[in-house]
Protein backbone atom coordinates (compact mmCIF):
# COMPACT_ATOMS: atom_id res chain seq x y z
CA UNK A 1 0.00 0.00 0.00
CA UNK A 2 1.23 3.49 -0.87
CA UNK A 3 0.70 6.78 0.95
CA UNK A 4 -2.83 7.02 2.25
CA UNK A 5 -5.65 9.48 2.57
CA UNK A 6 -7.09 9.36 6.07
CA UNK A 7 -10.36 7.96 4.73
CA UNK A 8 -9.06 5.77 1.93
CA UNK A 9 -6.12 3.43 1.47
CA UNK A 10 -4.81 3.09 -2.06
CA UNK A 11 -2.62 0.72 -3.96
CA UNK A 12 -2.51 2.74 -7.15
CA UNK A 13 1.23 3.35 -7.49
CA UNK A 14 2.04 -0.34 -7.10
CA UNK A 15 -0.64 -1.46 -9.58
CA UNK A 16 0.31 1.23 -12.08
CA UNK A 17 3.97 0.25 -11.99
CA UNK A 18 3.18 -3.43 -12.29
CA UNK A 19 1.10 -2.60 -15.38
CA UNK A 20 4.16 -0.84 -16.81
CA UNK A 21 2.47 2.54 -16.98
CA UNK A 22 3.78 5.98 -16.10
CA UNK A 23 1.57 8.56 -14.40
CA UNK A 24 1.34 10.30 -17.76
CA UNK A 25 0.18 7.11 -19.53
CA UNK A 26 -2.45 6.46 -16.89
CA UNK A 27 -3.67 10.05 -16.87
CA UNK A 28 -4.12 10.02 -20.64
CA UNK A 29 -6.08 6.75 -20.55
CA UNK A 30 -8.25 7.92 -17.67
CA UNK A 31 -8.67 11.39 -19.25
CA UNK A 32 -7.47 13.40 -16.28
CA UNK A 33 -4.41 15.47 -15.49
CA UNK A 34 -1.20 13.80 -14.35
CA UNK A 35 -1.47 15.94 -11.22
CA UNK A 36 -4.68 14.12 -10.32
CA UNK A 37 -3.01 10.71 -10.59
CA UNK A 38 -0.11 11.98 -8.51
CA UNK A 39 -2.48 13.44 -5.90
CA UNK A 40 -4.43 10.17 -5.68
CA UNK A 41 -1.27 8.09 -5.34
CA UNK A 42 0.00 10.35 -2.57
CA UNK A 43 -3.25 10.21 -0.64
CA UNK A 44 -3.94 13.92 -1.16
CA UNK A 45 -7.09 13.46 -3.18
CA UNK A 46 -9.97 10.96 -3.14
CA UNK A 47 -11.26 10.48 -6.72
CA UNK A 48 -14.89 10.46 -7.80
CA UNK A 49 -16.59 7.14 -8.59
CA UNK A 50 -16.33 7.81 -12.34
CA UNK A 51 -12.60 8.51 -12.15
CA UNK A 52 -11.99 5.49 -9.90
CA UNK A 53 -13.80 3.28 -12.43
CA UNK A 54 -11.85 4.76 -15.35
CA UNK A 55 -8.55 4.10 -13.55
CA UNK A 56 -9.61 0.54 -12.70
CA UNK A 57 -10.64 -0.05 -16.31
CA UNK A 58 -7.29 1.21 -17.58
CA UNK A 59 -5.39 -1.00 -15.13
CA UNK A 60 -7.65 -3.98 -15.86
CA UNK A 61 -8.65 -4.54 -12.28
CA UNK A 62 -11.52 -3.84 -9.88
CA UNK A 63 -11.89 -0.57 -7.98
CA UNK A 64 -11.63 -2.59 -4.75
CA UNK A 65 -8.17 -3.76 -5.80
CA UNK A 66 -6.98 -0.15 -5.92
CA UNK A 67 -8.86 1.44 -3.05
CA UNK A 68 -9.71 0.09 0.39
CA UNK A 69 -11.33 1.54 3.47
CA UNK A 70 -8.96 1.80 6.43
Amino acid at each position, binding site marked *: MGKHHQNLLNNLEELRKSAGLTQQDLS*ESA*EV*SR*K*SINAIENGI*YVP*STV*LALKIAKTLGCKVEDIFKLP
Partner: protein
Amino acid sequence: MNYFKRFLIVFVCGIVQILFAAYSALVLYGVSIDWHINNHIFMFIPGILIFASSGILTASYYFGDKKNNNILYDEYTALRYYKIAAAGYALNGIGIFILFSIQDWSNWNFQNANNMIYQIAAFAWLTFGLLLTIFSIGDYKEYKNG
Protein backbone atom coordinates in the same frame (compact mmCIF):
# COMPACT_ATOMS: atom_id res chain seq x y z
CA MET B 1 -6.47 26.56 -24.00
CA ASN B 2 -3.47 25.01 -22.30
CA TYR B 3 -1.79 25.17 -18.89
CA PHE B 4 0.44 28.10 -19.82
CA LYS B 5 -2.39 30.22 -21.24
CA ARG B 6 -4.52 29.52 -18.17
CA PHE B 7 -1.61 30.40 -15.91
CA LEU B 8 -1.10 33.67 -17.79
CA ILE B 9 -4.79 34.63 -17.64
CA VAL B 10 -5.19 33.89 -13.91
CA PHE B 11 -1.78 35.36 -13.02
CA VAL B 12 -2.48 38.67 -14.83
CA CYS B 13 -5.86 38.94 -13.07
CA GLY B 14 -4.18 38.35 -9.70
CA ILE B 15 -1.26 40.72 -10.22
CA VAL B 16 -3.49 43.53 -11.51
CA GLN B 17 -5.72 43.17 -8.45
CA ILE B 18 -2.70 43.32 -6.13
CA LEU B 19 -1.44 46.48 -7.89
CA PHE B 20 -4.86 48.14 -7.60
CA ALA B 21 -5.07 47.10 -3.94
CA ALA B 22 -1.64 48.62 -3.31
CA TYR B 23 -2.65 51.81 -5.13
CA SER B 24 -5.89 52.08 -3.13
CA ALA B 25 -4.01 51.52 0.13
CA LEU B 26 -1.53 54.26 -0.76
CA VAL B 27 -4.38 56.68 -1.57
CA LEU B 28 -6.08 55.80 1.73
CA TYR B 29 -2.94 56.44 3.76
CA GLY B 30 -2.25 59.66 1.86
CA VAL B 31 1.06 58.48 0.43
CA SER B 32 1.88 60.36 -2.75
CA ILE B 33 3.52 58.39 -5.54
CA ASP B 34 3.31 61.32 -7.97
CA TRP B 35 0.88 59.34 -10.08
CA HIS B 36 -2.89 59.35 -9.82
CA ILE B 37 -5.74 57.59 -11.52
CA ASN B 38 -7.64 60.69 -12.58
CA ASN B 39 -10.35 58.91 -14.47
CA HIS B 40 -12.23 56.59 -12.12
CA ILE B 41 -13.31 54.41 -15.03
CA PHE B 42 -9.81 52.88 -14.69
CA MET B 43 -10.90 51.47 -11.33
CA PHE B 44 -13.08 49.03 -13.28
CA ILE B 45 -10.04 47.41 -14.90
CA PRO B 46 -9.64 44.55 -12.35
CA GLY B 47 -13.35 43.73 -12.58
CA ILE B 48 -13.37 43.85 -16.39
CA LEU B 49 -10.31 41.59 -16.44
CA ILE B 50 -12.05 39.07 -14.18
CA PHE B 51 -15.20 39.12 -16.34
CA ALA B 52 -13.19 38.74 -19.55
CA SER B 53 -10.99 35.99 -18.12
CA SER B 54 -13.97 34.09 -16.75
CA GLY B 55 -15.60 34.39 -20.17
CA ILE B 56 -12.53 33.08 -21.98
CA LEU B 57 -12.09 30.15 -19.57
CA THR B 58 -15.80 29.28 -19.67
CA ALA B 59 -15.86 29.41 -23.48
CA SER B 60 -12.77 27.21 -23.67
CA TYR B 61 -14.42 24.73 -21.29
CA TYR B 62 -17.61 24.43 -23.34
CA PHE B 63 -16.27 24.89 -26.87
CA GLY B 64 -12.64 23.74 -26.60
CA ASP B 65 -11.14 20.37 -27.46
CA LYS B 66 -12.90 17.77 -25.27
CA LYS B 67 -9.85 15.55 -24.75
CA ASN B 68 -7.70 18.49 -23.77
CA ASN B 69 -10.40 19.86 -21.47
CA ASN B 70 -10.78 16.56 -19.63
CA ILE B 71 -7.18 17.06 -18.51
CA LEU B 72 -7.18 20.83 -18.11
CA TYR B 73 -10.44 21.06 -16.17
CA ASP B 74 -10.43 17.74 -14.32
CA GLU B 75 -12.15 17.21 -10.99
CA TYR B 76 -9.01 17.68 -8.87
CA THR B 77 -8.37 21.10 -10.44
CA ALA B 78 -12.03 22.02 -10.00
CA LEU B 79 -11.86 21.10 -6.32
CA ARG B 80 -8.88 23.38 -5.84
CA TYR B 81 -10.65 26.29 -7.55
CA TYR B 82 -13.65 25.74 -5.26
CA LYS B 83 -11.34 25.84 -2.25
CA ILE B 84 -9.79 29.10 -3.43
CA ALA B 85 -13.20 30.67 -3.96
CA ALA B 86 -14.36 29.46 -0.53
CA ALA B 87 -11.22 30.84 1.15
CA GLY B 88 -11.63 34.14 -0.71
CA TYR B 89 -15.27 34.55 0.25
CA ALA B 90 -14.55 33.64 3.89
CA LEU B 91 -11.64 36.10 4.13
CA ASN B 92 -13.66 38.82 2.41
CA GLY B 93 -16.60 38.22 4.73
CA ILE B 94 -14.38 38.55 7.81
CA GLY B 95 -12.53 41.53 6.32
CA ILE B 96 -15.65 43.47 5.36
CA PHE B 97 -17.15 42.78 8.79
CA ILE B 98 -14.03 44.24 10.41
CA LEU B 99 -14.01 47.21 8.02
CA PHE B 100 -17.64 47.97 8.88
CA SER B 101 -16.85 47.64 12.58
CA ILE B 102 -14.00 50.13 12.62
CA GLN B 103 -15.89 52.98 10.91
CA ASP B 104 -16.73 56.13 12.82
CA TRP B 105 -20.49 55.95 12.31
CA SER B 106 -21.21 58.79 14.78
CA ASN B 107 -19.31 61.20 12.56
CA TRP B 108 -20.37 59.89 9.17
CA ASN B 109 -19.81 61.99 6.09
CA PHE B 110 -19.16 61.68 2.38
CA GLN B 111 -15.39 61.44 2.83
CA ASN B 112 -15.73 58.57 5.33
CA ALA B 113 -18.06 56.73 2.96
CA ASN B 114 -15.63 57.24 0.10
CA ASN B 115 -12.76 55.94 2.24
CA MET B 116 -14.76 52.88 3.24
CA ILE B 117 -15.40 52.03 -0.42
CA TYR B 118 -11.64 52.28 -1.05
CA GLN B 119 -10.93 50.10 2.01
CA ILE B 120 -13.36 47.40 0.89
CA ALA B 121 -12.06 47.49 -2.69
CA ALA B 122 -8.44 47.31 -1.55
CA PHE B 123 -9.14 44.43 0.82
CA ALA B 124 -11.15 42.41 -1.72
CA TRP B 125 -8.58 43.00 -4.48
CA LEU B 126 -5.71 42.05 -2.20
CA THR B 127 -7.43 38.88 -0.95
CA PHE B 128 -8.42 37.53 -4.34
CA GLY B 129 -5.31 38.92 -6.03
CA LEU B 130 -3.00 37.03 -3.67
CA LEU B 131 -5.07 33.84 -3.89
CA LEU B 132 -5.17 33.91 -7.69
CA THR B 133 -1.48 34.73 -8.05
CA ILE B 134 -0.31 32.06 -5.61
CA PHE B 135 -2.67 29.49 -7.12
CA SER B 136 -1.66 30.21 -10.72
CA ILE B 137 2.05 29.92 -9.93
CA GLY B 138 1.56 26.71 -7.90
CA ASP B 139 -0.71 25.19 -10.56
CA TYR B 140 1.77 25.85 -13.35
CA LYS B 141 4.78 24.66 -11.31
CA GLU B 142 2.94 21.43 -10.55
CA TYR B 143 2.18 20.96 -14.22
CA LYS B 144 5.85 21.45 -15.09
CA ASN B 145 7.47 19.55 -12.24
CA GLY B 146 4.79 17.25 -10.85
